[in-house]
């Protein structure tokens, strides 16, 4: 589904991502872990076209999206969340989801006028569905900026769904969540998988990653140091060293 081929991104002298290779298969939950500053967010930014790579290739669904603009990667079927929550704070929860429906399907020229005016009845009922899915139905008219932290994280995931993606890239969706919220997120990720959506999960909360992912790649200093199933990764010496080396993040 998503093929990363010898992908590199240098910021000046910093090799944020260094000849990275991995493939996410259709329908799986793929974990991307590593110490702080190991290049996880940069990888997400490269895939979603925030900036072009220094070298390498990104293939999604058989299509080369290496240098595609963000809105093009979304049309291709990739939606994302941000590590530092990014919402339209002056818009309501409902509006944040409503305006996020921008998939290639939504954009068909024949739908353009209805899209500009407010979308079809179907589009609006889908917003209700995302509200329900993320347990935000009672917050629909609240400004996104007024939500509690956990609610904002949920809204980000719901918004990614609103784009009807084939794949979502979640950048630390559990950061700052309590146990119960993490458990709910775990269930939501499984629900995504059940819907056939491929997930790339960047996460620091190890119990979640080990619990929910099918396979994991581990980064350190922009390079992949291990790849495998959760149990393989847990017993991998290089991974243990990398995490111990950064005094257990």
């Amino acid at each position, binding site marked *: 589904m998503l093929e990363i081929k010898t992908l590199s991104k240098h910021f000046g002298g910093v090799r944020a991502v260094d000849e990275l290779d991995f493939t996410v298969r259709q329908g799986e939950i793929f974990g991307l872990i590593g110490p702080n500053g190991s290049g996880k967010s940069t990888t997400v930014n490269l895939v979603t076209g925030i900036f072009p790579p220094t070298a390498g290739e990104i293939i999604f669904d058989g299509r080369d999206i290496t240098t595609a603009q963000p809105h093009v990667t*979304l049309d291709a079927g990739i939606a994302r969340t941000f590590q530092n929550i*990014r919402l*339209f704070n002056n818009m309501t929860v409902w509006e944040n989801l*409503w305006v996020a429906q921008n998939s290639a399907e939504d*954009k068909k020229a024949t739908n353009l006028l209805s899209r*500009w*005016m407010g979308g079809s009845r179907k589009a609006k009922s889908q917003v209700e569905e995302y509200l329900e899915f993320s*347990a935000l139905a*009672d917050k629909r008219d609240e400004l996104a900026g007024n939500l509690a932290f956990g609610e904002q994280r949920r809204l980000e995931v719901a918004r990614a769904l609103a784009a009807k993606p084939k794949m979502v890239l979640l950048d630390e969706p559990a950061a700052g969540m309590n146990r119960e919220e993490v458990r709910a997120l775990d269930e939501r990720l499984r629900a995504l998988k059940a819907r056939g959506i491929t997930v790339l999960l960047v996460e620091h909360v190890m119990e979640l990653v080990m619990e929910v992912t099918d396979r994991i790649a581990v980064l350190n200093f922009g390079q992949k140091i291990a790849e495998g199933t959760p149990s393989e990764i847990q017993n991998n010496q290089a991974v243990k060293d990398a995490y111990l080396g950064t005094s257990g993040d």
Partner: protein
Amino acid sequence: MDEHLVSILTNIGGFTFIALSAYLLLLTGEISFGQQAFFGIGAYFSGIVTAMWGLSMWAAIPLTMLAAAFSAGLVGIITIRLRGLYFSIATLAFAEMVRLALVGTTWQVKIDGEMIGPNGSEGLGNIRWALDNNIEANDFMWIVLITLAIVMGLFFLMERSRLGSIFRTIGADRLLAETQGINVTAYKVAATALAGAIASLGGIFYAHAQTHVYPENFDVMLGVHSLAYGLIGGLGTALGPLLGVILDIGFLEAVEWVQGYRMIAFGGLVAVLLIFMPRGILDERRVHRLRMAFRTRKTEPPPAKTHDPAAS
């Protein structure tokens, strides 16, 4: 109706168009110091259409708006890579170029024994369509105000629509808008073109109310004012720029005892507001609160739904 009042209301109408054009760009996050160029293009182009070509103002309106949208769209394309201050400076430079071009342009033809057409810094006169058709100041005011009502209505429609939300998302967080599939470049050019057309509408009415316009009417002060109107009145609703215009023209200019101090009062108002209400009086949060208060009075809140067990 009192003549003074008629002229004030006509002015409020005319200047609200350019305020709305600056407001539309502010929504998309751009500060244009150049909307006076399209006001000026609107005044000159429509004046040429009616005074030189002898067409009616009703024909001049769509032609002029198209011409303004086209030139504004070109400016939008040329400046698309410029952000923030650079965009502001580029728009200002463009507007000054337009003004100087008007100063340097003389193109007059003899019509009924009179020389008619742009005449450098002497401007463009004899825009007599209203006089020739016996449209009195009072009637002209109604033409302006009704057109304004229509344009405001379209703005309200846009603000409730997805298109309006898309414009706002670009202004709020351009990168986020882009990652949500919004082709920011295309929408920005569209907004610039639309804003140019709206500003030109103000110029059309200004020219036909005044019958004579000068290049100096479209200097940078007009651009600064049109920006300030939205920033004072608020960026949460299209009523914001209208409120700004009413405060300035309706109050500061019309009330005699502030006359001498108008610019000082206006500058002070802008400064104070920018500190305490950076997005104006009717900003997004206040508008949201008003909307919610209005809505709960009208309808019961939807019953709290039980959550999907997998989601709670």
